[in-house]
């Protein structure tokens, strides 16, 4: 009997991952980085291969009864899991190649290098899990390893981020645990296959409650507003390759869980479920990108952009649920396919952007866009590749994010009139949210690229930047190739996406014929053609100018209004670039700015010093979380009156408890 290729690829991924982890612990410093990075890259490649095999139609299922107590481990790989396996594996491999260069600088950090292959393996394990307990084990492994990596940086900020992350991810786990265990109890089995078969007989009220719990649990992992507060804190604190894996792969698993449970196990359910998902997705998309637009920390900006993109994916999933519920399976499948495609494209460009931001951090030691600038001449390759990623994140034609957002818009625009006021209102609102977030994304990434990389350096650190090392550029290069492939020929992924949508449990024959139907209404757009035409036009205009020019070109210094020199203080900073947007969204983001004027000792009409400070706190965090934190703290302080450390009082409590228990028992008899 020949072995299942998916199983072989997964075993290879697991083996290399463990080798990388142990290698980091035992190998001498000289070869540690190279050996760990190499085997981690091999592990990621094998994981991606497993995903690709699953996407090509192969499946794999196994039951390992003795691996874990209580029911053992159930594994199952289908095309839906394949999407997430392929994305996670590819991101892991690219980040590992990049890490060879990145960790060489910080070579002594043995713990990070040992933990992060384990983290990536746990990410590969989540989509493979096929029972409630296996999924929860993998989920918790993922949460713990990523928590260690967030805290690895040390320092006050990392500690605070770690605390937020630990609390929120475990509250998410509690919600997930409650929801899935309730579901398993109602279905009398914990395997996914069993639950899917039995879910028809579960009462709708239970299913609705389970869905709400699961949405909270998975949504918090996917950075869904208002459960996103941990994401912009935790992602920037981890080392950059790990940030890339967290932002491009880990958050996706929240979407995976929602699709698997919502469509696969609960078979769609009621419409209000998906209306909620759609609404929260639209809210996340718009809120995330507004925060990103006014953010000046490069990695936090990228983290908020993750909130936006995951919001769009969530919106796609919600739209798929609504369309499926209203009897339009074709458009539902298209919406879900758009969501899954966006998972892949977002992973591609976000890996590129986070790794590029890592190179900048490595070269300059700062993430503050206000202090950067001028990197184009010092880091030309990184700048070019970051620009490619920014084009993708801005969702413009030719960028990676464009095909998936276009497909999503198409599926929403072509929806037939749906009965029900809520759905009728929400679908156009969703279209508006996508358009608004795409527009703001352009502003955000023009800011990130323009103030971060172009013009003159605004600090000594940016002035002394240097180009990244070979392995780091190689990692960026691979991610850039993936971006280009997804941007120019997204159509090649259609059969794989169709299989994934089938596996998700939305019934559909296949995507190509539906794509044709959309063509008939005249709404196709070939990204490859657009890019080819633009490039050809630019070349043609250049050639035309060359032919028609009557005089040779004259080189001249940059015009500086006759009063040189041009200084970096004349440039747009990230703060000033975002100022108009901050003004427009003043009511939403409620920025805090403070102008402090110090008068001269001699006269109050002479100004000695003017200090301006501005902060854009996360408003949802302020309004929603701080009251809860304060309440908990107050409750804790009140509890100190009850438990004040006196042994006598505790003995008294014990005595009273026994008396009460005896009375209750006596009364119950």
């Amino acid at each position, binding site marked *: 009997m020949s072995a299942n290729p998916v199983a072989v690829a997964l075993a290879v991924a697991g083996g290399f991952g463990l080798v990388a982890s142990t290698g980091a612990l035992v190998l001498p410093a000289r070869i540690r980085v190279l050996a760990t990075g190499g085997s981690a890259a091999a592990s990621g490649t094998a994981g991606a291969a497993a995903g690709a095999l699953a996407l090509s139609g192969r499946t794999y299922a196994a039951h390992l009864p003795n691996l874990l107590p209580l029911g053992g481990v159930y594994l199952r790989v289908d095309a839906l899991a394949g999407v997430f396996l392929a994305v996670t594996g590819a991101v892991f491999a690219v980040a590992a190649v990049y890490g060879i260069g990145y960790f060489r600088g910080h070579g002594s950090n043995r713990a990070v290098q040992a933990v992060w292959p384990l983290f990536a393996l746990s990410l590969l394990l989540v989509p493979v899990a096929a029972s409630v307990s296996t999924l929860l084990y993998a989920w918790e492994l993922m949460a713990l390893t990523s928590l260690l990596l967030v805290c690895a940086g040390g320092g006050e900020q990392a500690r605070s981020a770690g605390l937020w992350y630990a609390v929120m991810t475990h509250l998410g786990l509690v919600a997930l645990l409650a929801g899935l265990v309730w579901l398993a109890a109602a279905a009398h089995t914990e395997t996914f296959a069993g639950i899917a078969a039995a879910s028809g007989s579960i009462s709708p009220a239970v299913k609705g409650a389970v869905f709400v719990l699961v949405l909270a649990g998975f949504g918090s992992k996917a950075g869904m507003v208002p459960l996103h507060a941990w994401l912009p804190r935790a992602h920037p604190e981890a080392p950059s390759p790990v940030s890339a894996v967290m932002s491009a792969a880990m958050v996706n698993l929240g979407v995976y869980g929602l699709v698997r449970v919502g469509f696969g196990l609960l078979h769609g359910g009621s419409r209000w479920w998906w209306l909620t998902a759609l609404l929260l997705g639209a809210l996340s998309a718009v809120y995330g990108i507004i925060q990103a637009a006014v953010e000046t920390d490069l990695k936090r900006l990228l983290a908020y952009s993750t909130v936006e993109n995951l919001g769009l994916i969530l919106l796609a999933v919600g739209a798929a649920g609504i369309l499926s519920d209203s009897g339009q399976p074709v458009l539902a499948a298209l919406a879900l396919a758009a969501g899954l495609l966006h998972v892949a494209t977002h992973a591609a460009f976000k890996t590129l952007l986070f790794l590029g931001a890592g190179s900048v951090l490595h070269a300059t030691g700062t993430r503050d866009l206000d202090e950067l600038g001028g990197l184009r001449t010092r880091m030309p390759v990184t700048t070019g590749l970051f620009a490619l990623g920014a084009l993708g994140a801005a969702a413009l034609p030719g960028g990676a994010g464009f095909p998936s957002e276009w497909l999503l818009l198409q599926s929403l625009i072509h929806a037939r009139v749906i009965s029900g006021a809520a759905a009728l209102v929400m679908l156009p609102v969703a279209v508006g949210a996508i358009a608004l977030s795409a527009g703001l994304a352009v502003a955000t990434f023009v800011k990130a690229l323009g103030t971060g990389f172009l013009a003159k350096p605004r600090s000594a650190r940016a002035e002394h930047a240097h180009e990244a090392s070979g392995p780091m550029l190689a990692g960026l290069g691979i991610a850039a190739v993936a971006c280009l492939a997804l941007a120019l020929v997204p159509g090649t992924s259609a059969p794989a996406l169709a299989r994934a949508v089938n596996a998700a449990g939305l019934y559909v024959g296949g995507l190509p014929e539906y794509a044709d139907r959309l063509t008939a209404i005249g709404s196709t757009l070939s990204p490859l053609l657009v890019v080819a035409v633009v490039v050809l036009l630019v070349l043609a205009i250049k050639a035309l100018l060359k032919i028609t020019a009557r*005089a040779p070109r*004259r080189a001249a210094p940059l*015009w500086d*209004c*006759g009063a040189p020199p041009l200084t970096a203080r004349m440039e747009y900073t990230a703060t000033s670039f975002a100022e108009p947007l901050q003004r427009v969204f003043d009511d939403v983001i409620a920025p805090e700015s403070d102008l402090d004027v110090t008068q001269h000792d001699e006269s109050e009409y002479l100004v000695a010093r003017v200090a301006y400070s501005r902060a854009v706190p996360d408003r949802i965090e302020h309004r929603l979380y701080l009251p809860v934190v304060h309440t908990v703290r107050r409750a804790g302080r009140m509890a100190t009156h009850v438990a004040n450390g006196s042994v006598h009082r505790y003995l008294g409590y014990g005595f009273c408890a026994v008396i009460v228990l005896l009375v209750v028992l006596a009364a119950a008899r």
Partner: protein
Amino acid sequence: MLSLFRKIAAVGRVAESAPPAPEPAPPELAARTRALRGSAQVRCVDAGSCNGCEIEIGQAFGPVYDAERYGARIVASPRHADVLLVTGPVTRNMAEPLRRTYEAAAEPKVVVAVGDCAIDCGEFAGAYGVEGAAGDVVPVDLVVPGCPPEPAAIVEALRKVTGR
């Protein structure tokens, strides 16, 4: 919008009818300005003027004298300009910017010194802050005397450049 059209119809044309063409520019200048083919982009440089000449230049491009009908047009950057209208005595602070402005203008470049100050420092000759006349800093091709010169004289100088 409609009221705007009504106003246009009511006011009609206020530009004075074109005076006869001025005598042609010196042959050396005419040879250089032939490449402009009747269209001159103009950048004004205030090198230290009292602003009197600027007001007259403004009038020259206003609706009554309407220099634009002869092909001259004000632009915002010397990078776009063929003609520099230099006004005022060149002060110490403006000498270097004037030199740079001249270097930044496109070939072929024509410098017109507008007003007595630009021609020979006028009232301010020998003042401590004055570096010299415009001709001491950049090569001057045409002069428009007057303190300040009449708009018609400025238009006439520009017509020599455009040849219209």
